[in-house]
Structures are given as structure tokens and as C-alpha cells.
């Protein structure tokens, strides 16, 4: 299944995935998401939407078929490089003990960051401001944030790794309206202004304000375009 006339940035080719218990999630699934597209992936709870995102960043491994990033089989890429290119945001935001600054700079502690320059406090504060968190000081403990604020913090942290694609797993399911607006606006901006690819999983109806999304539905192991 591919969007017409566009080379794929993220792709599944004949992917089969079943959980250990034997429940089939994807059955010979094909999917091609063009670079810069905004894909809305829908499906019932338990249909396997999160699993599909996890396949793209190799947190799950298919039993058959290939997962590709810009045409390259992702198993040929170093995992750290793949995951910095394809940023996956978990449904439940995870933070480390420490301040907002320590959380935002966490990706720069890993070897994969190499000599990438660390953003200074001004850049970090501006990023938080863009996600409607301008009132949270960088010295605040991350553990004191609400779930919505944590989700925005995690999105900011993911954006600092300069990914090519964002995989958002039900990013607004537990958020207050303000947080949900901020997260979705940032995702649209990543796609429109930054040219990045977004795959957003949602089981609820959601209509982006600024982008015309591709829409796909996952049901009984099959993917189908509902709007391409």
C-alpha cells in the first residue's frame, strides 16, 4: 500500500508480525509513507497501531518482511542512528529523575550524540516556549510536571535530536486541551516547516488544522488507505 507517485521515506514490505501469544497484528502488510507526509493511523484498541510504530524504530522485529527507512532495510542501520532519525514518542511519557534541563539534555549524554553541540539554556527555554511551557523554569524537577507537561517535555527532547521522522503514539490521549493543542501544533510544524515525516496513531477522530494528512486504517492485520 503506497501513496501515489512519491518515494517512500518509511516503508513496510510484506511485514508479518504476531505477538508471542500468537495474536496476528500485521499480515503481509505493505505501507509506504512519503517524506514530509503526515500520516494518521487509526484502528481499534489492540489492533496493533503501537506495534506498527515500534517496528519502525526496531523496538519490535517482524517475523517476515522488511521495514525500510529511505529505502534501506533498518536492520542494516546502527540502532542508535536509526532511533535518532526516527523519533518514537511513547504513549505514556517517561522522564528521568532530575530537572527539565537534565531531561532535555539527556540525548546528548549518549555516545550516538558524538560531538553535537548542546543547546544552551536560551535555546531550551525557546523550545519549551514553543510548546506552551514557557512558564516552567529549566531548574524545575520533571517529576513535578503534569502528564500533559511531561508529554510536551518528551516531545521537546525528541525534537532536540533533530529526527527525520516523528512517530507519535496516541500523543493526546491523556492530555488536557492546552497540551493537546501544543503537541499537535508542534507535530504539524515539524512536518510543514521542517519537512519531516509524521506518523500519528490515534483511535479517536482527529483533524489537523494546517496539513492535509494521509489516513490509513489498521484492522485484523490489514492496512487500508482511507485517504491517500
Amino acid at each position, binding site marked *: 500500500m503506497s501513496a501515489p507517485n512519491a518515494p517512500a521515506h518509511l516503508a513496510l514490505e510484506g511485514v508479518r508480525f504476531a505477538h508471542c501469544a500468537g495474536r496476528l497484528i500485521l499480515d503481509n502488510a505493505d505501507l509506504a509513507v512519503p517524506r514530509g507526509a503526515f500520516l494518521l493511523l487509526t484502528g481499534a484498541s489492540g489492533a496493533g497501531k503501537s506495534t506498527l510504530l515500534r517496528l519502525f524504530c526496531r*523496538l519490535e522485529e517482524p517475523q517476515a518482511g522488511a521495514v525500510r527507512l529511505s529505502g534501506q532495510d533498518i536492520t542494516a542501520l546502527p*540502532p542508535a542512528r536509526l*532511533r535518532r532519525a526516527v523519533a518514537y514518542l511513547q504513549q505514556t511519557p*517517561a522522564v528521568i529523575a532530575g530537572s527539565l534541563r537534565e531531561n532535555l539534555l539527556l540525548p546528548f*549524554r*549518549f555516545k550516538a550524540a558524538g560531538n553535537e553541540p548542546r543547546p544552551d539554556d536560551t535555546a531550551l527555554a525557546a523550545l519549551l516556549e514553543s510548546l506552551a511551557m514557557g512558564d516552567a523554569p529549566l531548574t524545575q524537577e520533571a517529576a513535578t510536571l503534569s502528564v500533559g507537561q511531561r508529554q510536551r517535555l518528551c516531545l521537546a527532547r525528541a525534537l532536540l*535530536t533533530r529526527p527525520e521522522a516523528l512517530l507519535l503514539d496516541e500523543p493526546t490521549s491523556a492530555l488536557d486541551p492546552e497540551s493537546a493543542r501544543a503537541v499537535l501544533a508542534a507535530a504539524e510544524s515539524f512536518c510543514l516547516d521542517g519537512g519531516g515525516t509524521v506518523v500519528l496513531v490515534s483511535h479517536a477522530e482527529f483533524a489537523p488544522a494546517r496539513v492535509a494528512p494521509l489516513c490509513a486504517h489498521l484492522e485484523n492485520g490489514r492496512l487500508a488507505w482511507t485517504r491517500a
Partner: protein
Amino acid sequence: MDAGVIDIAPWRLALALVFALAAGGCSLALKLNLGRDILIGTVRTFAQLFLMGWVLGLVFAVDSPWLVMGLFLIMATAAAHTARGRITEKAITYALPMYASMAAVYLLVTITVTGAIIHAEPWWKPQYFLPIGGMVLGNSMNSVAVALDRLFSDLRARAAVVEMKLCLGADAAEASADEVRAAVRAGMIPSINSMMAVGLVSLPGMMTGQILGGSDPTLAIRYQIVVMLMIVGATALGSSILTLIIRRRCFAPGDRPLLR
């Protein structure tokens, strides 16, 4: 009977069963459901120690390094098997590296103590090598079990944080560094705590045994200091090396976490 030690007649040894009966009574009164374990433990204590006494007598008489090493390896395998039995996680396979690492690390520690510190001649002299090796294995077995159980349970409980770090570009070692540190600490703390209490709260077994056997208490103390330090070193090395080796088995190729 040794000149300095009071003999324990068989019927007096049987009298010691009163303590096992007391433990069984507590289990019954408080419905602890430990009666069977206490019974099996008591029988095994008698059987295993009498068997070991007989084997030691044989090994001392034969005086062969191969026999000493063979017995040490059997003891190391039993220690690894016991430690493995205390770990509840079944999704990760780790038996072979665990057995091999425990045997190698504790053999090295025991050789260092008998050969370099006590300076036994030869270094495998069974009267020294086997009791010292037994103490290393007995104490380290517990620390390894605690460390690995903690590692597995933390990797499951904190799976979301480990995955989050992987998604930010961490490799498996970086993503699980906090869990590894916590596991090694948990394994080491009991032996460090016993260093704090020794001489104040407790008179350890080896020292007590030597004093009962008529040794000069200052010599017994020197031996005990060696033993305490040896146990801290062995538990640190054992828990660190095994935790680091077995941590790798908690991730599939592609740094994909297996515990969640």
C-alpha cells in the same frame, strides 16, 4: 578428638534439633507454611555436611591438586545452581555464562587468597583451599542471586524508561546503566554491612572456629580480616561481572529490550 575442642557426642548433636523444632513451631503457630522447607533444610544440613566431612577427609588423604580443583568446581556449580534457583525471571537464558563466570571469578579470588595472602604451600593445599573457596562461594552466591534478581525486576519495572533512552539514541549499555548500578549495589551491600558489624555485633564463623580449635585469637582475627575483605572483593567482582554479562542477554540484536 582435637585436644583443644570439646567433643559433641551424637546424642548432644541430636539435642540441637530442638532449634529446628522451634523453627517448625513458629511456622505452625504463625501459619508460615515453612514446615516442609525447615524439615528438608534440616535433613540436607545433616546429610550434606556429613558427606562433605567424608569427602574432605578423602581429599586431605589423597592430596591431589586435580581432586581439589574438581571438588571446587562441583561446589561452584552447586553455588551457581542454588543462586539460579532463587531468581524468578524465566524469560532470559543465562545458565552457561553464570556457571562459567562464577567458577572462573571465585577460583581466581581463592587462588589469590591461598597463594598470595595466606601463602599456603602449595597454593591448592586442600585444608586451606576448600574452606576458603567454600566461604567465597557461599557468600558470593547470595550476592549474585540478589544482583541478578534486582537487574531483571528493574529492567521489567523500568522498561518504559529504558525504551525511552533507547529511542533517544542510547545503546543497550547506556539505556540500562542505572539498572545495572542498582543491581550491583544491591548485591554488594550485605557484605559491606557485615564489615561494619564484624567484631561489634558478630564473631564470624571462621574466627569462632579457630578460637574454639585453640588458635591464638590474634591469628584468628588476622584470618578473619582476610576473609572479610576477600568476601567483599568476591561479591563485588562476582555481581559486577555477572550483571554486565547477563545484562547483554536482556537485549536482542538491534538493542531491542526483551524484558517489559
